[in-house]
């Protein structure tokens, strides 16, 4: 199996810092801002970013988890139903500036489902998307990210493997691998 390292721990840290600075640049005081991590893997990244923002700006931004399973458009089009994760949003989204966070942006279908799922909690004033890895030229839908960790050229036969310490791995590493 071919394996190529996209992010190691140091590079990930630098990239996250840069993304946080970009967020600060656009949101300045974060008065009206909330973070939503997409289940199952975007939540770890969302927590890392929230912690970093607290260090950099001193603001504790409300964070929630959003599960998109029941809003996916591939239900009954795959062999088995996708397993749902917890949705935990303890604040009102109505009128807020929402930053959606996920690890990898691929076809854009998860983000579409997320936008749909989010509406059940109110009408946000503005929604932005932050992703760590943006797989270029792979989109099925007209969706793009506002904050991008890294643009990566990939083939359909490849997969992005995310290993984070928060998930129980020894080091933060992100790989591009060939599917068997």
């Amino acid at each position, binding site marked *: 199996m071919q394996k190529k390292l996209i992010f190691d721990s140091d590079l990930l840290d630098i990239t996250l810092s840069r993304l946080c600075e970009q967020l600060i640049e656009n949101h300045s005081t974060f008065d009206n801002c909330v973070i939503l991590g997409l289940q199952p893997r975007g939540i770890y990244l969302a927590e890392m970013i929230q912690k970093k923002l607290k260090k950099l700006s001193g603001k504790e931004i409300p964070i929630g988890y959003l*599960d998109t*399973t*029941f*809003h*996916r458009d591939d*239900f*009954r*089009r*795959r*062999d*088995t*139903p*996708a*397993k*749902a*994760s*917890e*949705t935990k949003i303890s604040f009102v989204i109505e009128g807020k500036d929402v930053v959606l966070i996920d690890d990898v942006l691929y076809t854009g279908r998860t983000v579409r489902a997320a936008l*749909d*799922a989010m*509406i*059940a*909690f*109110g009408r946000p004033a503005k929604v932005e998307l932050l992703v760590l890895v943006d797989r270029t030229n792979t989109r099925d839908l007209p969706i793009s990210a506002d904050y991008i960790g890294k643009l990566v050229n990939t083939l359909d036969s490849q997969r992005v493997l995310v290993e984070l310490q928060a998930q129980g791995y020894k080091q933060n590493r992100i790989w591009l691998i060939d599917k068997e």
Partner: protein
Amino acid sequence: MSTLSQRHLLGIKNITRKDIELIFETADTFKEVINRPIKKVPSLRDVTIANIFFENSTRTRLSFELAEKRLSADVVNFSASTSSVKKGETLLDTVNNILAMKVDMVVMRHASVGAPHFLSKHIKANIVNAGDGTHEHPTQALLDAYSIRERLGSVEGKKIAIIGDILHSRVALSNIFALQKLGAKVMVCGPPTLLPKFISSLGVEVELDVKKALEWCDVANVLRIQLERQQIKYFPSLREYSLYFGINKKMLDSLKKQIVVMHPGPINRGVEITSDAADSQQSVILDQVENGVAVRMAVLYLLAGATA
């Protein structure tokens, strides 16, 4: 990714512990959904479900219908009392006619044991048994076990007493299967005439003294006397039944520990349970109803999603 081992939910007997746990985990997420301001998700929006009830029902039918609507399914309702069944149509014909209108799933209640099993051999749609005669009522058992898990943390190792008309109860049989699969100990208690003869062969304990049953258990699941299924008299009078087998607050207070009181409904207040016991802090009767919607959403979601 995860799926049930069966295409239909006909009874608890033919599903596995893993299936039950998957349903519970899925129900957890649906319980969060039905407590949102907008209680609806679009998962089943291209699925049509027929609720076919050949026997009366309020709670189960409402619960299924709500579950279906919260999943955005299209729902058609059918009840035998207002249909061609009265004109002499057979079960298979009735259902085939409904399926000819392109229905994907059938939720069925029938007075005959095995009716949904029979249908599952003849039609393509997924079938959910909503009660077949005195046989099984799988979703009720699932929501009962789910409510125990919610109140006590888990079902494993807990002692559950099922008290009342065991002979005519489909809830009792499905409960025994579900609770045993999840590792609980089960006892049945009631007048000897309302206990099936060989019930102990299922591995349950049999107790004739309700006081002793209450002292033994962590959870008491109290069942209704199903007068509509009793062709002969099984006990002298309802008054005598409630004197010997009815549960009241005084009895619950006299126990050393706080037990959980359950009832699948409809309650005959003052017969199998008094109002002060049914409405007490120990009762989870209304939680059962709420959990019923979440559990049924989970069952429908998992069955509809398994297209392989």
